[in-house]
């Protein structure tokens, strides 16, 4: 399972990086989103998969899945959400102000 997940993570990173390298705001933000998914899956995969019960205490002599990566991912999801939301609004506002969604056209002011 971990091997398959590693391959899947590789695909997500490839797609994420490819989208990051494009010119369009939307694609770049979608790329960061996909990269984030890849990263979350990477964290949980590194903790080991399907090793026991869900981490909710039921009594003695039960083996649980590692809870620590889950806590880390939960934090990461929320932070990623906050950053993505901010980027979205930023992209929206810059399109409104600057009239383009092409990142190559954002070249600053001539006399800078």
């Amino acid at each position, binding site marked *: *399972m*971990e*091997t*398959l997940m590693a*391959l*899947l*993570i*590789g*695909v*997500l*990173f*490839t*797609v994420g*990086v490819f*989208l990051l*390298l*494009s*010119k*369009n*705001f*939307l694609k770049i933000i*979608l790329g960061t*989103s*996909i990269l984030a998914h890849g990263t979350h*899956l*990477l964290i*949980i*995969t*590194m*903790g*080991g998969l*399907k090793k*026991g*019960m869900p*981490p*909710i*205490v039921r009594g003695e002599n039960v083996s649980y*899945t590692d*809870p*620590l990566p*889950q806590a880390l991912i*939960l934090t990461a999801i*929320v932070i990623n959400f*906050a950053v993505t*939301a*901010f980027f*979205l*609004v*930023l*992209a*929206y*506002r810059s*399109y*409104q*102000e600057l009239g383009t*969604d092409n*990142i*190559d056209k*954002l070249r*600053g002011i001539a006399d800078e």
Partner: protein
Amino acid sequence: MKGDHLLLLYFTLLVPFLFALLVPLLYRYMPRIHTGWFVLVVPTGIFIYMINLIPIIAKGEKLVNSVPWIPTLGINYSTYVDGLTLLFGLLISGIGALVVLYSIYYMSKQREALHNFYVYLLIFMGAMLGIAFSDNIFILYMFWELTSIASFLLIAYWYQRKQSRYGAQKSLIITVIGGLALLAGLILLSIMTNTFSIREMIEADQMIVKHQLFLPSMLLILLGAFTKSAQFPFHIWLPDAMEAPTPISAYLHSATMVKAGIYLVARFTPVFSGTIEWFWLVTGTGMITLLWGSFSAVKQNDLKAMLAFSTISQLGLIMCLLGIGSASLYASTAILAALFHLINHSTFKGCLFMVVGIVDHETGTRDIRRLGGLMNIMPITFTLMIIGSFSMAGLPPFNGFLSKELFFTGVLEAARLNIFHLETWGILLPILAWIASIFTFIYSMILVLKTFTGKYKPNKYEKKVHEAPLGMLISPIFLASLVILFFFFPNIISNNLLQPAMKAILPGLLEGGGFENNIKIWHGWTTEVFMTLGVAVVGMLLYISFPKWSGIYEYLPEKISFNYIYDRGLVGMEKLAAKITKTYMTGIVRDYLLYIFIFFVVVVGGSMVLLNNFTFNPSGNGPVSAYEVVLILVIIGAAVLVMLTKSRLTAVIGVGVIGFVVAMFFVIFRAPDLALTQLVVETVTVALFLLCFYHLPELGRETGGVGLRAANLIVSLGVGVLVTLLALTAQSNPLVDPISTFFENSYQLAGARNIVNAILVDFRGFDTMLEILVLSIAGLGVYSLIKLPLARRDNK
């Protein structure tokens, strides 16, 4: 007695700096009196104090002491006074006093910013004294750079003029490059000898010569000395430094700062002497500088430029003598000649600069093509010019004659030696020295005859020409009398000043029987006398026929001049740097992202390949079931769809699909909290995407062609493959056991059955608090982005 002296010495060395603080106040609150009168007290006082030290030093006593500055690093402000130090101390303070006196009449109280002038001058004086008196290499270096900075400020004193700024920048660049080389050389020396004290380095000279760092440190220190003392080919800054006010040219660029390099070479002669590299580097550079300087001086039209090249050539002469003198046991006359000429040059060159300043001041020009016939109008100035120039040319009865004779003696002695390949090349030294002396003779004559003889044409001058005021004449008269005095009584300074200074340069020699330090005016009909006669005769003939052969200067193409190389080099370096920056700083974010990803792939992937540490061990893997494979395929499909689609809606939905399948994976991987959060967040995110991009245009085509997209694909594939390999390798090598068994006690420790939640709010609650903060900041950011559209470009 001695303790008092040391205390006084420290105070004396600090006085210029302390007084520099006072100068602006005096300038501001005593506007009726020329600020220079107050400043005059400082060098005069120091000079009198130094005179009092002469008997002590002449007896062979040495004043050593140190005050801690950074004791933990071994850096102390230590001073050491021996003959060489005192000689420089007297020159700096003595000429300093005369220059200040001269400047009082030269610099107008009404028109000039005198407070700046005297502050810079005092800083320079203090720094120069500091160089001569320091024993610690770092203190020496500190003062060394301080002289560069003060000189920079003084050259650009009239900062409104372009040429001043150009000259100041040039001199700063060249001397600071040399200064940094000096620092490196000094540090190498301290590594070799394990001390920061120059005195202790001199005692360890045997160890240094054998050390492998010997040659680098010697080269670096010489680079520092040669740049400061305007030796070939670093002499180019000195003629441009002539944009400074004339008192500054007289003080810095003839008598003191340019002799800092001479001091350095003399100071380190005991450390490096006796080696063939030192001998030929110092002698050779000095000789080339002497020749080139005197040759170039003849073609100048500006009096100050002529004096600048003459200074270059005389410094080369002194340097050459120091080099010859480093073969100390055989050629001690050279050191005597070097030191004697050092003093003589300061006197006659200081006098000449002041005279040129007077001519400039009274006629409004320094161009020899416009000057002429001033003999009868300015008789005193004319007399002073004759004394200075004839001394420079090496004629009796002036002190230049004595040191020129000693110079010839030195080179003749060197030519007879059988060491350092002198038996083959040595004969060149007297020949070149003789040729250089002829050129020296010619420009000395030009200086006198072109300026003062001929017909007086009043219409050529902007002002009504008259003799200079007495005050302006005092200093050059004083220097000119010294020029004559030193000729008739050379042994006064020889016994009291030169002998202790020679002892400092050649510490080993005195035990070996002492040396001849009696300077005689007349030796009889020796070779040197005939050489001088030859110089005078040939020089006079060449001067008369000068218009016939002056054409040779035009054969020298401008492109091989060092100024041309310097200017071109500076422009070229700027252009090159701009070009390099422009090639990689494209301003396009995508390019920078490419650099980052390529760097990541090359460094991480490269080290993986080099260390050959990819491992694959699937034995600990969990089981795979069919629907998981289906889910994986769905994600891959959605990802590829996002990558290829041209519709924004498809792309957004594709990413949504990926998010929801990831949530399903969290279910499979037994992470219920994650699955819940992921579902909610993904839903909100997709909604946000849809909301936002409703306002954005369609994706459109990726411009840039297939090649660019292929490059992007290769880089992203590289990243993806590398991440997969890293994940597999990390998975196959679990280094430590997880610590999560501790958290399984969450019910006993925290009263919570949900372990993940217990970690989030109890065990690691701090993370959660800051994550809440991140969310709040993002919310506030979104709010302000939308609500505060303040600074519009067009300021509506």
